[in-house]
């Protein structure tokens, strides 16, 4: 048995398609293991489908490597965060914590937004005051923002804890107080009169990162920016857990983001184990069921065979996708239901083929011999017939896998995927439904499709490599 297996493997390994297929599969498996180990189980609900989590990411941003190919440099995305102040000063009223963030800004366009987030603020005496100042490359200083942490409630006793459950995110873009500060700054420094509402519609982040040219034109100001986040505390026990400043870019990461700002590389990675799971699990169950029924029907025959054949014929004769859509729609969108449905509709093809193979084997002498010694039926089926058809069944298992991966992707694309976990089909669906293809967001549309194809091709290649092993007639063909 083991030499037979070894020979079969050598035969398989001889072909280039097999080698490529196995390499592909190894990469898929490694990536899947990485995801399973490092991602939380509730990734879909807690992060992917939670818009709050992605608030500080740029929306519909292409991957950052597009900058290598374009003449105009698109701003990168900068996130600065710190849990420890860079400086502490003793003032008359208390301790001043200063967080310092430096940014060498060299892009040809201004950033897309600006936001400040604070987390875990504790105070004992007076509410903590948080300010944000910026010094620009031209030496001009703007006091952008001032925020007083909410005062104690009635009956509340110190320590007063703020922003523990949910961090406080202040979007400077769209903030009217920042707009009027900037309007005053423009008229003081450049003699440009502009209403705060106009500043708001141009965008606060744009004004900060540019100098006015005429009354309505702005040119980007490149160079070193320093942001100061100044926190005035009034008690030595007061503390701030974390401050974060985000200078929103227009490119992001290796794969870009979608229209909700979700980092596509994170979602696409999560798709690996799911695609493999659906493909392999569905295929395995389907093959076992289909082969089992085929062997039983073929060997036992009679009424059982008749029932199996009629059912297989029926299932084989219905158009699959409409009924799958119907059932996924009525029964609900859940990964297990989808796998179940794929199995229910997938088994007949194999049953029909395996049955006809068993019918031929049945009259073989080794079977007659086994019957003559008095071997029970299940023993013959399991020990004598199954090993004969096993290589074929295994090849079919591999061959079916891409079909199921593609079917799940199709269902997801039609909006019937499991909403609690992102799959490649779902990422594509959202890109399609939200109009991403009509405005050419290629980084959102092309990668998930290529990943689906890559995964499917892996199994096609392995199946091609197995063909000469399973079908010895092909062996000598070269």
């Amino acid at each position, binding site marked *: 048995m083991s030499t037979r297996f070894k020979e079969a493997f050598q035969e398989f390994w001889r072909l280039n398609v097999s080698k490529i297929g196995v390499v592909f599969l190894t990469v898929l498996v490694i990536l899947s293991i990485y995801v399973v180990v490092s991602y939380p189980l509730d990734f879909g609900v807690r992060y992917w489908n939670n818009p709050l989590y992605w608030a500080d990411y740029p929306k519909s941003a292409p991957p950052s490597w597009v900058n290598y190919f374009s003449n105009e440099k698109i701003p990168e995305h900068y996130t600065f965060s710190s849990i420890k102040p860079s400086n502490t000063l003793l003032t008359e009223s208390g301790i001043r914590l200063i967080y310092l963030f430096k940014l060498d800004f060299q892009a040809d366009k201004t950033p897309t937004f600006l936001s400040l987030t604070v987390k875990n603020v504790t105070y004992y005496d007076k509410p903590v005051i948080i300010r944000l100042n910026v010094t620009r490359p031209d030496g001009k200083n703007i006091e952008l923002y001032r925020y007083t942490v909410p005062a104690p409630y009635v009956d509340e006793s110190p320590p007063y804890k703020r922003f523990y459950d949910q961090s406080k995110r202040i979007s400077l873009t769209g903030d009217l107080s920042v707009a009027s500060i900037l309007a005053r700054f423009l008229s003081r420094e450049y003699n440009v009169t502009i209403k705060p509402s106009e500043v708001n519609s141009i965008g606060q982040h744009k004004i900060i990162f540019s100098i006015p040219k005429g009354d309505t034109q702005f040119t980007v100001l490149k160079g070193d920016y320093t942001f100061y986040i100044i926190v005035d505390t009034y008690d030595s026990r007061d503390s701030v857990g974390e401050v974060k400043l985000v200078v929103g870019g227009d490119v992001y990461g290796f794969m870009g983001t979608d229209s909700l700002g979700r980092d596509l590389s994170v979602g696409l990675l999560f798709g690996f184990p799911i695609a493999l799971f659906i493909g392999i699990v569905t295929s395995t169950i389907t093959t076992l069921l289909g082969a089992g029924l085929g062997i039983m029907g073929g060997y036992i025959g009679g009424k059982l065979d008749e029932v199996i054949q009629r059912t297989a014929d029926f299932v084989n004769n219905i158009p699959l996708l*409409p*009924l799958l859509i119907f059932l996924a729609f009525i029964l609900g969108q859940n990964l297990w239901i989808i796998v179940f449905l794929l199995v229910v509709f997938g088994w007949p093809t194999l049953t029909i083929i395996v049955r006809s193979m068993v019918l031929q084997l049945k009259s073989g002498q080794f079977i007659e011999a086994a019957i003559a010694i008095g071997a029970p039926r299940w023993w013959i089926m399991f020990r004598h017939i199954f090993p004969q058809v096993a290589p074929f069944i295994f090849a079919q298992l591999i061959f079916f896998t891409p079909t199921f991966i593609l079917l799940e992707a199709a269902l997801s694309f039609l909006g019937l995927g499991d909403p609690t976990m992102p799959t490649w089909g779902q990422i594509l669906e959202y890109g399609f439904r939200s109009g991403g293809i009509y405005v050419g967001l290629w980084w959102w549309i092309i990668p998930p499709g290529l990943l689906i194809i890559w995964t499917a091709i892996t199994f*096609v290649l392995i199946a091609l490599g197995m063909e000469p092993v399973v079908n010895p007639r092909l062996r000598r063909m070269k």
Partner: protein
Amino acid sequence: MGLARTLFMRALTLITVLVLVIFFMVLVLGATGTSDKILQAMVNEEIMMLRQSLAKTIKDPQELERVINIRKQELTEFYGLTKPWYVRLPDMAWRVLTLELGKARTLKTFAGGNKVSDIVMERLTNTIILVTSATVISAIVGLVLGVRIATRVGGILDRLSSYFSAISYAIPTWWIGIILILVFAFLLRLFPFGGLYSTPPPSDPYMKFLDIIWHAVLPVTTLVIASIGVWIYTTRTIVLNTAQEDFVNAARARGLPEELVRRRYIMRVAAPPILTNVILGLATSISGAILTETVFNWPGLGRLFYDAVLVMDEVVVIALTYIFTLVYVVARFLLEVLYVILDPRVRY
């Protein structure tokens, strides 16, 4: 009359499939409580209309309420909502069969009506246009190329086509469509993003026809790319197998011209198995149509399916599942008639 009997048996099998699918659907609808929801919606619809018409004649609100309540009870009785779902199975099955499913919740016909059967029927032609033209093109190109390749086995074209058919097995049809849109509609602006014709459609009928063709190019190409690999590969394999048979060699040995050998001896024998493959691929092309129409916003049944799922319109989803099965069964029957004509052996 072997022919009539064979066809009758085929028709019977396919009708059984249709009946079983409907039965299965109704079973699922009943067991999940969906059929109750649909019938209740029909009752509510009628009560609402009754209230509007009665409000003009009956002024006393209490009297109005009383009349409406009586009518509501009658209707609930009439639709069988007082009985458990499994008693209502045959009735529900009949509703699906005759598309008497009431009104769609949000989807409408092009004219603005909301009767389910109207919505479904007016889109049927668009789907048939799309699928038929794609199938005809794939068939012609696939047959011509397949036969050509079979005469030059091992050539570049042969190897290319076998790679292509292996790869096309792994590419989702709808993604091809999306890429075509990205390249030809967005980037090159050669073809429209989707739809059946421009808005507003050209008034001149000739121009309108051209407009539809212009809109159909990308979806038809998508379907052809998706199915042509299989066409070429099966044609090639079957023709190749037939060409190695003894009777073909015998015909060549008799000195018959190659053209005649190919037409009468090879193709005549290879045609039925090729057709079998087409029949088997029919279900796939229906799936392909659903997805391709969705991508290209082609106003056929497939796009309607997507829209119905999107707005959660159960009745339309049910009607479409049934119609797709019906279209499949009818198309399959037509192909099998063709098969019986092509292969005389089937008759006996």
